[in-house]
């Protein structure tokens, strides 16, 4: 065809740029890890600390997973911190005051989150009140309810069964087994994908590139498992993050709902004329966000073994920051969950590394704020360059 000769160079440039963008995040994370590793004399990279780090990031990571969908759909949710606090509070109250079993407590907390998400989503989708306002209202309302139902007291302690959600580790053998299963699945899906593309006569990437990346992932997974196993094993909350991360990556890539929220966030009018039900899909996004806030609430209460009235304060901002650092555009239509989880890890690393160095906490706020601004600046300037050239 005529296009092949003239358009080739553009393709090269494009794929390079794409790689540079997605690697920038990983490079940033590695630099942060390296800097803290050096400044703490290696202590930052110790098995014990890595284990702590992953435990610390989980709440924000779970919130950021849902927040990615909300922001991609072109909205925002400022209530997730309060909602995680409230659902965590409901969990603690049901167990400590009413003696419910852990399973029912967890289900109740997640359902409460989903229900309140539904309520907020209804205002946004069916009453056309901007999400910023609805969820700002929700932030105040949910915090108020939490203080009301707990009489302003800290509710503690929880059952042993509830505590293990955030405070337990996988046995070493199970950890290795899971890591191995994960690696096999990675290779299998890559192989199946290639096979399928071959059958359909589509272009296949060079095997070196595909399997090279896979081998890097494998090394990372095994190394991480080894490091964590040198301490107590893989923390269960990390497993929860991986589970929900995987689930929501699946939802966003493989279901029509996932595709539609990207379309809605990218261009709502075009999406509507393509037959997409804007309201129902928007509502669903908020329901899912609420449910994930419930999950985050459970993890939080379990980790602290208590529910306090201030639990989860400002978490909404950390979650939003994690998404944005991970490449999600506040304009909607663009973002990915892996990035958000890495963003959460970057935020947690900064908290963790700086407190290890005994730097006063106010510096953590300042540094995180600066990183947020710089991350968005890098994103915007890289986009500007690409738009000028096209």
């Amino acid at each position, binding site marked *: 065809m005529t296009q092949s000769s003239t*358009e080739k160079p553009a393709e090269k440039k494009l794929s390079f740029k794409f790689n540079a963008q997605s690697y920038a995040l990983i490079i940033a994370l590695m630099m942060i890890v390296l800097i803290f590793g050096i400044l703490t004399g290696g202590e930052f990279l110790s098995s014990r600390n890595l284990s702590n780090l992953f435990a610390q990031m989980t709440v924000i990571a779970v919130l950021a997973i849902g927040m990615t969908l909300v922001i991609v759909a072109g909205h925002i949710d400022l209530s997730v911190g309060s909602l995680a606090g409230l659902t965590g509070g409901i969990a603690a109250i049901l167990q400590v005051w009413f003696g419910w079993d852990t399973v029912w407590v967890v289900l109740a907390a997640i359902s409460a989150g989903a229900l309140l998400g539904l309520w907020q989503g209804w205002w946004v989708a069916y009453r056309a009140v901007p999400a910023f306002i609805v969820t700002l209202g929700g932030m105040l309302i949910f915090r108020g309810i939490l203080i009301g139902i707990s009489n302003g007291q800290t509710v503690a302690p929880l059952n042993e069964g509830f505590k293990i959600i955030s405070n337990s580790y996988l046995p070493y053998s199970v950890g290795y087994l899971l890591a191995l299963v994960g690696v096999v699945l990675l290779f299998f899906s890559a192989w199946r994908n290639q096979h399928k*593309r071959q059958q*359909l006569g589509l272009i296949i990437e060079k095997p070196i590139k595909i399997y090279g990346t896979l081998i890097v992932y494998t090394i990372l997974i095994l190394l991480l498992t080894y490091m964590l196993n040198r301490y107590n094993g893989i923390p269960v909350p990390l497993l929860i993050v991986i589970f929900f991360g995987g689930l929501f990556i699946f939802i966003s890539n493989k279901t*029509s709902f996932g*595709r539609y929220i990207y379309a809605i966030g990218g261009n709502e009018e075009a999406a509507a004329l393509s037959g997409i039900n804007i309201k129902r899909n928007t509502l669903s996004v908020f329901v899912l966000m609420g449910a994930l806030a419930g999950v985050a609430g459970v993890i939080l209460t379990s980790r602290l073994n208590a529910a306090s009235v201030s639990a989860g304060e400002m978490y909404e901002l950390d979650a939003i920051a994690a998404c944005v650092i991970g490449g999600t555009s506040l304009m909607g239509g663009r973002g990915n969950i892996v990035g958000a989880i890495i963003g959460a890890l970057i935020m947690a690393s900064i908290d963790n590394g700086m407190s290890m160095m005994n730097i006063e906490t106010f510096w953590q706020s300042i540094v995180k704020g600066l990183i947020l601004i710089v991350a968005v600046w890098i994103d915007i300037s890289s986009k500007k360059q690409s738009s000028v*050239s*096209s």
Partner: protein
Amino acid sequence: MGAYALQMEGITKEFPGMKALDHVTLSVEKGEIHALCGENGAGKSTLMKILSGVYPAGSFDGRIMIEGREVSFRNIKASQEAGIAIIYQELALVPEMTIGENIFLSSDLMREKVLNWNRIYAETKRWLDYIGLDIDPQRKLGDLTVGKQQLIEIVKALTKHAEILILDEPTAALTESEVEVLAAILKDLQAKGVTCIYISHKLGEVMRLADSVTILRDGQTVDTFNVDEITEDTIVTKMVGRPLTDYFPYEEHEIGEEILRVQNYSFYHKSTDEKIADNVSFKLRKGEILGVSGLMGAGRSELFISLFGGYPGKSYGSVTIDGQSANIQKPSDAIKAGLAYVSEDRKRYGLVLGMEITKNATLAALRNVMPKGLIDASLELKSSEEMTNKLNVKTHSLEAKVDQLSGGNQQKVVLSKWLFTNPKVLILDEPTRGIDVGAKSEIYKIINELSQQGVGIVMISSELPEILGMSDRILVMADGTISGELSREEATQESVMKLATTRRDNHDPVIN
């Protein structure tokens, strides 16, 4: 003729991976209207961005001389100070501000410590009189039609007393009478010694307005002519680099049984309860191309968006598709019933610009690539590859975002999206607006092929030659009703225009 107002010599501009301009030469004589023609992607806009300082000196090779003196602009402000004003296709106005505020936004009048509003609005009134618009200067700009806003934008450039005025597709959104206003303004400016560079796809206007024309193709200057020594056909041939034997490749095709019947259809504005279309009835048959003509504001687009379920106001009447009575409340109902609607504004209503070509192509019929209830990425890629190949979408990768494509290719992606839904009736609203000649003729070919396959086609268009050239039958709309119907044989420019202007005698079509 006189001296050169502007000379651009050997302009070469490279973007990573591609050469946008390759030793382009442009010489414009003082006081002339100089048209710049070329297909989309030929480099017209890039050249003007260099001239106006968007791409600063140093980011390209070559020389720019104004009145014989070499200049180098570091930014847009520097080019403005040298007397260059540019009016872009996309309006650079603030809809929430008044007309006066918009016109003088960046003028010295706005830099005084205490603003003299009386003077600002008096000046505005003077300018509005000059261009023959009788509107209150304190009216909110967003209340005006796009065509009027375009005129305001031109006024804004005039207030800066530019010596070289660049107009990038100024008439795309203008009505016939507004084009006349613009033509008069340009002639007046010319008399005052202002030089104009006029970028347009509408060659009829170029021939009428311009003194000379420079043609660009693939980033290179093809040639410069006086308009007296060239014809429209030659311009087209030079632009595309090959003779275009037939603009409108109408082919005889079989017309089958009735596929769409609309009876007594009326609908209302969403908030004011004003009737927009009144008692419209028409039929469409399989394989038929039904042209819909009418002036701006006749309610053509609104009617079909409403039939498609995309208009928020109430509607009454009956719609029958392929013998089945259709109750269309929302676009998904319409898609299920076999309708497809290609909007006139593809960037706003047709595409998710930041999304990949593949994903745009499958958006309206995602179920087709979900064999097991989940999106099959390989199948999706394969299906959209087949569809986009059929429509000859030119791209280096289907995983590229659609905002990287040219207008013509974007339009083909929109068409792909709707053909994926296997429509029985395809509604095309201004299918060739703002796309270049080559892509236009490809789109006409696609329309012909679809009609041969038995798809009923509604083609709304403001371009009369297109309507006359492509349609089997023509509906003319005026004031929200169908004012007449013409067969292919009956239809002429005059007969269509006559029907389009009926019942509009004491109704100014320009003012909202």
